[in-house]
Structures are given as C-alpha cells and as structure tokens.
C-alpha cells in the first residue's frame, strides 16, 4: 500500500489548530512547497514549531495561518529579520514561545522517549528559563546539588521534513546523511510527512541501507516535491535563493500594499510549486541555484 500522496492531499491531513513542526535550519532544507500549500489551503490557528527558521515562519504568519510560534531563532540571518513575524509579535497578534535550541531538542527527546523530562544545562542563568515556566523546571541533583534544567515533553502532532529520496513504503533519506535536527521532530511527532526531491525504487534503499535516514514505520506520507525546499537550500543539490530573500525583505519594507502584491504574485498566488518557481525566475533560477555536488 503506497504512502505516496500529492501535495494537496498531504496538506489536507493537517487540521486547523494542529501543532505542526517544520524541519530544516535557517535557510536550509525547509519543506517550502508544503508550507506554500498550507497557505493556499488557508489553514488556521496552527501552532508552529520551527527550531531555527525564517522564511517558513514569516510566510505562514503573513498568510494568517498561525496562532502561536515556538522557536529559538527567527531571522533571515545577514539578509534581514523576518518582517511579518516581527510585526505580528510586536503587535501581539500571534503568541511567541521563545526557547533555545537545546531546550527544544531536549523537550522533543523527552516526548519521543516517554520520559518525564530530559536534563540539560541549557539556559541556566538566562532569562529563557523565566519565560518557559511550565515547560521546564530548574532542579538540583539530590546527591551532588548540581543544578540542571528539566526540559518537559513537547509532543508534536505533525512533523514535515524535506528529504532527497523516498520509496513508496516511506523509507526516506537525506543526502549525504542527516545533518540538521529534523530527526528530533520526526521522533516526537504522531504523524510524519516527508516531501521528497524524488521517488526512487525500493531497491535503492536495500542497495545502500546505511544511508537510510527514516525507516518506513516513521513516515506516514511521502510527497513528491522536486525543488521542494526552494527558496531554501537542499544540500548538496541546490543552494538558497539569495535574491528572493532580498526582494522579499525589500517588499516588506516598502509598505503593506507593495508587500501584499509581492506575496500574492511571488509566493501564494501561483497554483503549483513549478509555477511558483517560474514566478521567481523559472529555469534560469533553477540553473542559478544549482550547486556542484559536494
């Protein structure tokens, strides 16, 4: 029984109000085709976990899909701040649970491993602890008196991650191997959807079983999504689209109408991911962002 779904059907699996975790890190490896379809299907009241991200969060906030964001860092790095996210938090129109990377990882691990908490030294002495009451606890070891942070479980309804190859059973792999923190959200999630650059035959996994990242039993749906991380990168195949980030930031800085037009024409409007890439440079862009395999 194949787990292959088209993008529309996979996004339809996300109920309004769900806690959804988006993989990738900053300008890398984010399932942007999926994110765009979430916008097109006008999902609402999502709780969005993205440990370190920018564009995915900003899109979903701009489109009004998000009730609450959980993250450690939200920015476009040197290319700017995430403008819609920033404005929404400042205006109080979305909730923001700021945490830090290792506290989030530890909370996900506690959820994935059926533990009441995971200990870490992360955050001791910082104000991150004070704004996360109820989600962590500062405790001390009864034998040594050593202080630690008990990171409490963070369960996730749906994890969405982008991979390079998957088979119809749900076996999936990231080339050259898993690098970012995506496995943590997959492990903590009830349901996992992978978007994939390509579907490959099952024998491709048995031929190189040490390269498999997620076994089939961790994956509920496989969505073909070529260039599906665009405008973020998918190492080692293509890099992020610097000019998209720059033009997006510029549009957001030019006023509300200008941004809404940009967002309609360049992000949410195009019906398919291919049309979306066409709206941002088409084949020329694909050639521009291609990188030599390394």
């Amino acid at each position, binding site marked *: 029984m194949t787990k292959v779904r088209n993008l529309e059907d996979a996004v339809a699996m996300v109920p309004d109000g769900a806690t959804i975790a988006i993989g990738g890190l*900053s*300008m890398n490896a984010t399932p942007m085709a999926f994110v765009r379809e979430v916008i097109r299907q006008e999902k609402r009241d999502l709780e969005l976990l993205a440990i370190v991200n920018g564009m995915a969060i900003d899109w979903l906030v701009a489109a009004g899909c998000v009730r609450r964001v959980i993250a450690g*860092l939200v920015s476009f*790095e040197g290319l700017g701040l995430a403008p819609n996210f920033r404005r929404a938090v400042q205006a109080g129109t979305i909730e923001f649970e700021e945490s*830090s990377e290792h506290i989030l990882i530890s909370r996900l691990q506690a959820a994935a491993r059926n533990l009441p908490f995971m200990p870490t030294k992360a955050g*001791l*002495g*910082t104000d991150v602890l004070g704004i996360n009451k109820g989600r962590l606890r500062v405790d001390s070891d009864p034998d040594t008196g050593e202080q630690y942070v008990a990171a409490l479980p963070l369960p996730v309804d749906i994890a969405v991650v982008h991979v390079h190859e998957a088979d119809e059973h749900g076996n999936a792999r990231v080339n050259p191997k898993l*690098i970012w923190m995506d496995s943590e959200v997959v492990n903590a999630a009830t349901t996992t959807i992978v978007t994939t650059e390509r579907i490959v035959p099952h024998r491709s996994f048995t031929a190189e079983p040490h390269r498999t990242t997620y076994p089939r039993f961790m994956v509920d749906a496989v969505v073909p999504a070529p260039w599906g991380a665009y405008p973020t*990168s998918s190492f080692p195949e293509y890099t992020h689209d610097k000019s998209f980030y720059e033009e997006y930031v510029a549009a957001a800085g030019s006023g509300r109408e200008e941004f809404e037009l940009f967002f309609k024409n360049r992000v949410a409007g195009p019906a398919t991911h291919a049309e979306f890439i066409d709206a941002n440079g088409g084949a020329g862009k694909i050639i521009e962002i291609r990188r030599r395999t390394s």
Partner: protein
Amino acid sequence: MSVPIPGADCTLDELMVVTFSRAMSNDTRAFNGAVSYIPVCGYLLARKTHAPDLVWAASSIGIDADPPALGESTLSDSIWEGSTMLSNSPFDFWTYAQGAIYNTFAFRGAQIDRYGNVNNTVIGSFDEPKVRLPGGGGMADLSTMTPRIYIWSTTHNPRTFVDKLDFRSGMGWGNGGDHRALLGLPGGPQLAITSLCVMDFEPESKRMRFKSLHPGVTVEMVQEATGFEVLVPDGEIPTTDLPTADELRILRVEVDPTASRLREFA
C-alpha cells in the same frame, strides 16, 4: 562598509578579525552560529597561522571546513567545503558541546552588559516588545556549556553596551563574581572585542576592563560609548596590536577573499 584604522594599513574589520584570531590557541575547538563573520574569519586565520591544529566546525556541522570563500550566511551548507567530517547535529554536535569538547564559543548581541551577558531577544519587555529581535537560538545553551566565551561587537555604542539588559539571552558571567561557578557552569567570557577596544574581565568582580584600545581611540571615547563604567587596569592601557602583513594577506586572499566580514558593518 570598511572603516580605516588611522596610521595603519588595515581596516577595522581586519583589526578585529586578527585580534580575535590571536586570542585563539592551538587547542581551540570551536563552532559557530548565524552572522558570525568575525569569529569565523578569526578561526580560519588562526588555523592558517599560529594554531594549525585548531578545530572549527563550520555552522556547527562541517568539521575542519576550508571554504574557498564565505557567502551571505555562516549557518548554511555553503561553508562546509573541505570538511573532514559532516557531523550530525542531534548526536555528534550536542554531545561535543555538552561535554565541553568544543571549548570555544563566540557571540554578539543587540545588547551587552558589563558581565558579558547578551540580549538578542527583545528591546522593551518580553510580553510587549518595542522591538522583536531574532531570538537567542542556541545562545542560552552554548553559553552555559562552553568554557571559553568570546564576545564581539561591531557597534560599540550606548545602545549596545548597556547598564541593564532588557533580556538575558546568553549567559556571560551572569551577575558577576562567582555566579557562573555557583550554577556549575564552566569558564566564562574571556574577551570582548569591539569596534573601539578590547576588554577582558576583572578576575574577582568579572566586570569588563580595558585590555587595549584600538589606534586613535581613548578611554574617554569608550566610556562615552558605553552604558556602564569600564574598569581601568593598573598601568598604561596599550594600543591594540596591529595585524602583520602576513595576517592581512592570508585574511584578504585565503580566508575571506569576498570580504564577507563587512556584512557585520552594515
């Protein structure tokens, strides 16, 4: 934006990178996060000069990377070239970080206080922020786990160097004195390298103290640009050592030929 250093054949970015580089040693094992050109250039320069065994994990992933140039991100896969190991974040990286095997971490912030704590979260209150900043990322984690912390800032002014942080995103010496040790945290901030000067931390109070002044900068200029009193050490405050011709050549030609480091001086 390149700022010339008076009486020297180099610019501020180069002086800061070289100063950072010289603070590194052969047993430095470092990684980096977002928008970290000064330390990334510093690690590479140190490795190519006095610290050949220095370990640098590019964007915390690409161990011993040797990229031909840096781009518009220090957190992305574009700087992994030449790595001897692409390490796995949840398993390898966090173990090396928690275990203080990675012993060196550099951060900056929108606000920095006298103890080397930083704020990258909000200006104003957390619940009703005047300005929502990007957030601490891994700063709250790695600042508690790593023994040798370096702070840099390309904007030494009273908005950045403040008497009181609006939010403590990254842990320096905390409330000063023994605070860090009492929490069981290793080491602490070693140096703050800024656009005006280099500061270390007075061993007892853990307050920032002059170590050297960049050429043309006076104590008064720094004090005016700082929202707290910088301690003055006994004796004369030296001028920050200038880069050598060799260091400048390696930085300009081998480490950062596209001058990505200027992105920190926008």
